[in-house]
């Protein structure tokens, strides 16, 4: 019962374009992730939907009703802020009951509903606490309970877990998605972390410099990015600019074979995780001998910096496997890298 549509929305502050002709349709009950760098667009889309940011041109519909000119208080959306923004002078319960109070709704029935919501977000026993007495995670849960009790059918989550510790962030990602689905709400969630968007969303919209670049399900966005920015933003990558001729290109004296590209200038994106590093040659296409220059252990991954033909530097990411002991001993050793042609992503300049 809550769909959202943006039609050609542009937002300007002075000469600064924050959103550039964005059109986006969100179906009822969907959980959408907006992915992009900070100030790249995601947060502005949320503010525009909530009516907190005036638009320069375009139209916004909520449930097929034009709300372009209506005030934030009339849009019935729940906004979840990065900094939580609980009312510091009110208790948890009073924060949660704020919506019904300002709307003049009878509080006696609402109070029971609020209690239910409070147990849903696991805040029992903290009802009379002030926000400064709560942890970040609890504050954000209160914020969500507050939005739900105010009668929101749409939840706009603006980098909601950014201010939280990694562990709590992980928990909340699942917990809140499930809650939203259970209540049948529509949610739009902005973030600049690929993992968070992938984990929580039914569909992902990728933004950069105010433009909507791609809007599709997470798998498609990851596997078939529409341009070099999307390809590079979703995972750490090696990036080059090349000339393709007869289905091959040369970087620093190394020749790569690709398949199905016309001749022309391209940007090449090769994700670090897509490069295969072996100690013995496999004799496959696009295989090169290389020297391992640097090794960084990142946790579940190891990052190798290797040089091909003494001139081409490539970064490779491999899972940290248990078989390899003392990985650091590999520095300076000879190895082999190969690039699967279908994992080399080329985009016309």
């Amino acid at each position: 019962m809550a769909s959202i549509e943006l039609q050609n929305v542009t937002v300007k502050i002075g000469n600064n374009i924050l959103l550039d002709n964005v059109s986006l349709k969100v179906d009822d009950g969907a959980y959408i992730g907006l992915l992009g760098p900070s100030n790249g667009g995601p947060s502005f889309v949320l503010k525009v939907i909530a009516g907190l940011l005036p638009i320069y041109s375009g139209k916004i519909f909520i449930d097929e009703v034009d709300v372009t000119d209506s005030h934030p208080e009339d849009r019935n959306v729940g906004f979840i802020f990065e900094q939580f923004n609980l009312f510091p002078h009110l208790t948890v319960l009073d924060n949660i009951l704020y919506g019904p109070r300002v709307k003049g709704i009878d509080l006696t029935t609402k109070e029971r509903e609020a209690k239910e919501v409070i147990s849903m977000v696991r805040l029992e026993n903290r009802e009379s606490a002030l926000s400064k007495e709560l942890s970040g995670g609890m504050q954000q849960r209160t914020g969500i309970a507050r939005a739900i009790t105010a009668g929101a059918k749409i939840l706009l989550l603006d980098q909601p877990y950014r201010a939280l510790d990694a562990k709590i962030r992980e928990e909340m990602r699942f917990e809140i998605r499930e809650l939203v689905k259970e209540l049948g709400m529509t949610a739009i969630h902005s973030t600049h972390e690929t993992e968070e968007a992938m984990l929580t969303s039914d569909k992902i919209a990728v933004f950069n410099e105010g433009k909507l670049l791609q809007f599709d399900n997470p798998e498609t966005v990851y596997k078939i990015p529409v341009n070099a920015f999307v390809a590079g933003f979703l995972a750490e990558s090696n990036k080059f600019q090349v000339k393709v001729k007869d289905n091959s290109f040369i970087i620093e004296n190394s020749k790569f074979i690709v398949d199905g590209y016309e001749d022309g200038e391209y940007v090449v994106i090769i994700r670090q995780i897509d490069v295969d590093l072996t100690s013995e040659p496999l004799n496959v296409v696009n295989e090169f001998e290389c020297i391992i220059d640097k090794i960084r252990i990142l946790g579940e991954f190891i990052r190798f910096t290797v040089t091909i033909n003494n001139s081409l530097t490539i970064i490779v990411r491999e899972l940290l496997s248990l078989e390899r002991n003392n990985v650091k001993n590999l520095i300076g050793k000879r190895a082999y890298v190969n690039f699967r042609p279908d994992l080399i992503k080329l985009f016309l300049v």
Partner: protein
Amino acid sequence: MSSLDDIRKRYLNFERILSQRPIRILFEILVIFAFFSFVLLPPLNLLKNIITDWNSITELIFRDPILKNTVWLSMFRSIALSFRIAFIVMIIDIMLGIPIAHVLARYDFKGKTIIDTIIDLPLAVPTSALGFSVLLFWGSADGLSKFILAEEGIFSQGPMLLLLGHVAFSFSYVVRNLKGVIEEVDVEIENAARTLGAPPISVFRTITAPMAKEGIIAGAILAFTRSLGETGASLLLAGVYETAPIQIVTFMNGYRIPQAAFLSVILIIISITLLGGVRQYARKVGLPQPKIYPEFERKISAKKIAKTRNGIVSFIFLLLVLIPALFVIFYLIDVWSIGPSGTEEDSAFFEVFLDSDNKWESMQVALITSVEVALIVTIINLSLGIPMAYLLVRRPYWGKWKVVLDMAIDIPLVIPSSALGFAVYLLWGNLGLKLISPGIWLIVLAHLTFTYPFSVRPMINYIENFDYSYYEAGRTLGASDLTTFRRVVFPMLKRGILSSAILTFTRSMAETGATLIVMGNARTVPVFIVDLVESESLSSAAFAAVLLIFISFILLLVVRLVDNPTED
């Protein structure tokens, strides 16, 4: 070159020695001692005098053989008048101030900077100049009456004019304060309330106002105390009525010391009790959640009504504050070559430059005195104020003393300046320590007291906002405490120090009440204006007032430039 290096090394070493804890604490004790003796001692000494002479003083005031208790009755009347006016002024200031401050703090619109500056204009106008201007506008046939074709001034001198004058000079202080207070409430929290369904009026009542509660109450106290303590404008507007500060001046002029002392003490005690009480109340008492009228509040939040509301408020501001405050400029233009009587004899130009009594010369002397006093006061107070502010923010070992000091700093703010002036006279003058007789140095001592909070308070703010990690970085790189202060902290606080300095300077330049008590034969410009008005030389008074407005306005511009260096 090497000898220069040597000197530098020695200097740094010297700073290292001075940074040692015992020396630092000794210095800080000196700073506190100076604060105590310059600022707190005069009122305390006054209190002591009253207590020791209690019997003779009360006899004089309550049981005089001839006058009976008439002195007390007239004191009571003047105190009651002062409080009534201060109370109404406070209500008007807050009622008008909140909407204006809210618009200035929250909305961006064309010409905002201009309006912002216009609101601040009366800040720059010394109260006696402003009082004169208000008198001309509301109280003379050349003011508003001219436009509505009345023969006489709309109000005659008395409570109504006092009220109008006090609103005119206190309003800008209050708006400035409230604006800062509202700005401190995070817009995002207001946004949160909007998305939960609250229209702007409800947001203000349920979120902004409760969060800014302490600041709003502080603004109200400011309005109240500014009105209660004002002398310069009141002298010109009161006519036959007497406010409490005026009565102190009257007692002083008649050399009726015990009466002046008694009245001063009453004012000081009431002011401090009120301030302390209200502050304590504001901090502790949580207001109940206001009742909300959703339909009604939604309606009056509508754009059209909001615009009308802002329009009405702006009109009232123009009529009550801005035009009366600056009317003297138009008046001066009017009487520049041909005076109010229609001849050249009482034109401003003739009176000031050509008349036999050489007003231009005495004006220059007064101006020089004013500037001298203000400069000395600014320098002394900054050298005392910066260490004090630093001590209060950054020296945890002073513990409980800090709380006491922090409250004591504000005491001069709430005491009427004429009472403070009297206390200074009683302590240092020929009835007390006999160190300094009335004149420029006693003026300096008096001004030191009431400008002290103006130099310390903003500094505290600036130091609190200063990122302490810069200091820590300096220390870890090997500089001593004092060297770090000189090379890192001080340069980063320069802007704050400058705006503190200008605030102190303008406060001193504008002061009338305290100066009247301690000036002896010396004259400052605000006092000079009062003299001119009382001797009916209105054209020259207008000239002096405009001169003072002009100087203060320039200073105000400098403050604004210093405060917003990047604002375009």
